[in-house]
């Protein structure tokens, strides 16, 4: 192939691509939906009755390779119950400047309390805002649940780890 026809062929290639639709997306007006397994901003989950899934075991903090999580646990009582089982996380903080969104916390959590959600639009204007507290991370109470702490009959919740299915 001589040089001239090679250049023509190249130009023909770019010319044709004018008639293929654009592959770009007008972010932020249009957003690409994330995949099911996407690892975005964390969420702390609740059970349907409103109790928090987190039992304050600190396993997520131990598993975190970036040491981004800080957990402090307190005792549940039947008058002031936050989660099933003995304890709940009275302090739960994730430093989003340290987090690398690896998902190890989700893998390590024995109660499926912490899940990496779909939100990837994290921004803050100073370092203090990068620390996401328990209040920020905790999901709102669902329609069939009550807010925590709840007052419950004695001996109703004695099991910390629920029966779960393997995630997909």
């Amino acid at each position: 192939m001589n040089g001239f026809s090679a250049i023509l062929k190249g130009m023909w290639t770019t010319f044709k691509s004018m008639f293929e639709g654009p592959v770009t997306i007008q972010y932020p007006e249009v957003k690409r939906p994330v995949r099911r397994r996407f690892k975005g901003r964390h969420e702390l989950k609740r059970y349907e009755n409103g109790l928090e899934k987190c039992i304050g075991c600190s396993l997520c903090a131990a598993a975190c390779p970036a040491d981004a999580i800080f957990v402090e646990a307190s005792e549940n009582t039947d008058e002031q119950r936050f989660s099933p089982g003995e304890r709940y996380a009275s302090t739960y903080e994730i430093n989003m400047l340290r987090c690398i969104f690896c998902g190890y916390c989700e893998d390590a959590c024995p109660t499926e309390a912490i899940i990496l959600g779909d939100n990837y639009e994290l921004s803050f204007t100073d370092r203090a805002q990068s620390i996401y507290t328990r209040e920020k991370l905790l999901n709102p109470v669902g329609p069939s649940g009550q807010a925590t702490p709840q007052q419950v009959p004695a001996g109703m919740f004695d099991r910390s780890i629920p029966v779960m299915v393997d995630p997909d």
Partner: protein
Amino acid sequence: MTLQQVELTSDDLRHLVSQRALDGETVLLNMGPQHPSTHGVLRLLLELDGETVVNCIPDIGFLHTGIEKNIEAKTYEKSEVMTDRLDYLNTMGNNLVYCLAIEKLVDLDVPARAQTIRILFTELQRIASHLVWLGTAALDLAAMSVFLYCFRERERILDMMEMASGQRMMTTYFRPGGLWRDLPEEFIPTLEQFLDDLPARIDQYEDLLTHNPIFIDRTKGIGVLTEEQALGYSITGPTLRGSGIAYDIRRAHPYAGYENYEFDIITEEGGDCYARYLVRIREMRESIRIIRQAIARLEDGPVRSNNRKFVPPPRSELGTSMEAVIHHFKLWTEGFPAPADSVYVPVESPRGELGVFLEGDGGPKPYRCYWRTPSFVNLQVLPLLSKGHFVADLVAIIGSIDIVLGDTDR
């Protein structure tokens, strides 16, 4: 050609500036570390005689992350997330070599399905890496469209990685003993669609470049690396194969089951930038071939070893078995111990021989972890290749040896 035949004099290895620079006859010029064509943060100290490069001294370390040292401070499984961040265009390959090293050190089995998926993803990653290389190296030579086209296809690979692992780049999808999770069901149809489209796309890049006289002028005969030099500098990967030496670790020291796959080792004669370009283009087609074989081999089965001393139990067991809870807590807090022994595992990364030396001390953290990274070793030939060429050609040469600075500096 064996190593014994290679003879290098001390002059070949001297890259210091000449007396003429000290006398003011030639000019010393800094290129980088923020120069766009240095593919990251590579700084070059150039000694120029007019436009001609007399000497070129690479200065690395601007992207030093201390990952090797950091790995010693974390358990085997936790430190894997850092391997993604070494060569960020070959994240799956880095995971693979690290997992292989751990598995060899502690003697852990990997199920057949996991092996196949590992190969599938490393080859997909090779295509993605070559696409980025092709796009950026062509962009350095002012071929803008190629860059856009390559990234269009790479995006689809990243999307598939997001599908499987939840992350587009920093996947950590391979774990010691297998994989994080099995492939999602929509994955294989997406992949097959992609494999059907890709050959035509590669033809498109070739239409733009392979016979283009401007591209040929800029790359043919530029940065010639002879066989002797390539062996003498222990160059590996497409850069070596561009000099006509058929050496590929996938064939020479098969790992992860590569011995069962049919593929050709691509070589080109010439050793110049153009030969290296052709090698990478043809390697993409070879990778498609390997992925198709991997899809055909996929059989149902577990994707992670069942050895509870090393692999945390599945979540469904946690609510029903006390033993599973104990293993789960122990593995996520303490990790697993590895014997006081050392292993070295090499794999063929898109850039060449990527090796991990891992030494255990009986505890749950590595005593020492050393990475033999292809970018670091291949960068050594840059002074040799660039001597006597124009500054503009130097840009083509940097592009053609395909360095990733995260890999070089680690």
